[in-house]
């Protein structure tokens, strides 16, 4: 017997959570785009999507974030620190790759400096992951040693029932246990079987990839030029990636007042590394693409002991020229050794 959340109790669940002071965010399809957004009832949710186009990262590390409001007068400078609203949130129906993305980024935002903006949001959020029932051609979680039912980054884990009538439900963190306590009367004991987890084929050998990347002789390899020739440097692979986390600090305003903001930036952009002098150490798209791969599968691993990729496949799924990291890592796997 396992505990289940019947589908027809989801509305009551949402209501109970809202009553307990949470906002509930779930996959939605709005204005021709799928993303996580606030919902009021189960029918607002688009739970059948394999993956939303946008990631939940947006709700922890938004594309633009005000940091400080400032005013400069003749004799002094007034500034006010701006912090995100301290609202309790539940993310319902997160895919394992997106939940893992948050866990992968935690060490980065807490390393030399604890990023209050990230951790405030992390601490006020409960992640309810739903194991995948379906995968597409681009999913590659298994290639990065995760899986369609990985609990990494999750507080509560849901596994869809084979009958389609609900989910097996299990708390996998203290926060998850506390959340389930708020809805325990709605949960049932049942012997219903979970639906089988989809088979996601391994697309590359991540160990081989890491080994090749770690060899300094390959840094200047012609490989990088050949593989990235068609990249148009649009940056959408980085902006849609659940683990990409680069940002730029910009002051917006006039001479006397303004707002300092933290805005997404991307290593795919030429401007990303452009010096004031005009010199650009990454002056070709191939060097920028190399940076993206090296950062994810070498530097990040070296610093935090984990690769900066959760295998969601978005970078390939939406690339306007059908690139993405999968092809590159496959090619590296198959290089003659």
């Amino acid at each position, binding site marked *: 017997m396992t505990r289940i959340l019947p589908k027809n109790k989801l509305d009551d669940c949402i209501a109970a959570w809202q009553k307990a002071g949470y906002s509930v965010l779930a996959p939605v399809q709005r*204005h*021709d*785009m799928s993303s996580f957004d606030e919902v009021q009832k189960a029918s607002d949710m688009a739970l059948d999507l394999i993956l939303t*186009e*946008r990631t939940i990262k947006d709700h922890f590390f938004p*594309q*633009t974030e005000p940091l400080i409001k400032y005013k400069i007068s003749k004799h002094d400078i007034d500034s006010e620190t701006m912090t995100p609203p301290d609202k309790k949130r539940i993310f319902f129906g997160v895919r394992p790759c997106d939940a893992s993305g948050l866990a992968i980024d935690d060490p980065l935002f807490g390393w030399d400096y604890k990023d209050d903006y990230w951790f405030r949001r992390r601490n006020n959020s409960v992640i309810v992951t739903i194991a995948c029932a379906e995968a597409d*051609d*681009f999913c590659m979680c298994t290639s990065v040693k995760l899986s369609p039912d990985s609990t990494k980054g999750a507080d509560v884990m849901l596994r869809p029932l084979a009958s389609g009538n609900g989910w097996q439900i299990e708390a996998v963190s203290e926060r998850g246990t506390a959340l389930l306590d708020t809805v325990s009367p709605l949960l049932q004991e049942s012997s219903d079987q979970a639906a089988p987890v989809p088979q996601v084929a391994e697309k590359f050998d991540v160990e081989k990839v890491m080994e090749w990347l770690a060899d300094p002789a390959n840094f200047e390899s012609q490989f990088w030029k050949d593989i990235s*020739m*068609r990249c*148009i*440097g*649009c*940056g*959408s692979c*980085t*902006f*849609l990636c659940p683990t990409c986390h680069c940002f*730029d600090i*910009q002051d*917006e305003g006039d001479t006397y007042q303004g707002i300092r*903001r933290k*805005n*997404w930036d*991307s290593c795919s*952009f*030429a*401007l990303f590394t452009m010096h*004031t002098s005009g010199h650009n150490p990454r002056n*070709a*798209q191939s060097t920028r693409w190399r940076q993206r791969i090296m950062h994810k599968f070498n530097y990040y691993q070296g610093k935090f002991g984990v690769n900066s990729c959760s295998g969601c496949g978005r970078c*390939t799924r*939406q690339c*306007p*020229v*059908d*690139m*993405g990291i*999968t*092809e590159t890592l496959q090619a590296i796997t198959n290089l003659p050794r």
Partner: protein
Amino acid sequence: MGIQEQYRSEAAALLSSGEVKLVIGFGPGSTADRRRPLFARTPEEAEKLVLDPACISNLTTYLVAGGLLSDGKKVAIFLKPDGIRSLNILVSECQVKPEQVVIFGYAIENNEIRPLSGRSIGDFAEIGSKIRTATPPPAVQKEAERLEAMSPAERFEFWKEQFSKCIKCYACRQACPMCYCRRCIVDVNQPQWVSTSSHTLGNFEWNLVRAFHLAGRCAACGACDRACPVNIPLRLINYRMGKEVKEAFDYHAGESSDQKPVLASFSQDDPETFIL
């Protein structure tokens, strides 16, 4: 011999004779229904070229990227009519020397490939001459009419919702052959003229800049629209700007490679309705 094989062997011949340094075409993609840009530098690589109805992207973007043509050498490129139209615009704006480009032309009709005869831009005058009378795809026309029937407030609301999705990745710009500026205005950061923030105002700023800069220059290839990762219907903006230019100046971008860029030229017959 099918058109794919014919173009493959012609491409291989151009490469082995050294007439062109590169052939830009299509190769197999990561799934059965995807094709991706393929750059052939040797006759062997040319054997991998694919041409079928899934080859829909506009490859002219690559002609103006990374100084490809700055060495004066020739390249060959696979183009369908909207690509030829973009090339006309690029030539008329002095970005590409027509003698540097060998064209493998094709059209997709009823899910089949038809070759277009000719190899240099001058051979495709007929395609340009059809632009004047062409009708936009029914889906675009329908959506555009729906928007035009709205009140200005409703239309503003529509675009506000759409632009609020924008993440300023600039994929629309990077995919566009006409966005060839060495430094786009939004990347000019000393000072930062256009804010980099992707809030509603910033997103409006960017999308308006893009709309204005492409007025009378858009080839309606749809590259921006397909590239946008958050599905903003950019085609509708381009369509509307094209219509404005057509009505004001009787101008159709990309009709020929020697037309004068409409907003960069003056004619005594230009309407002066904007002068009060």
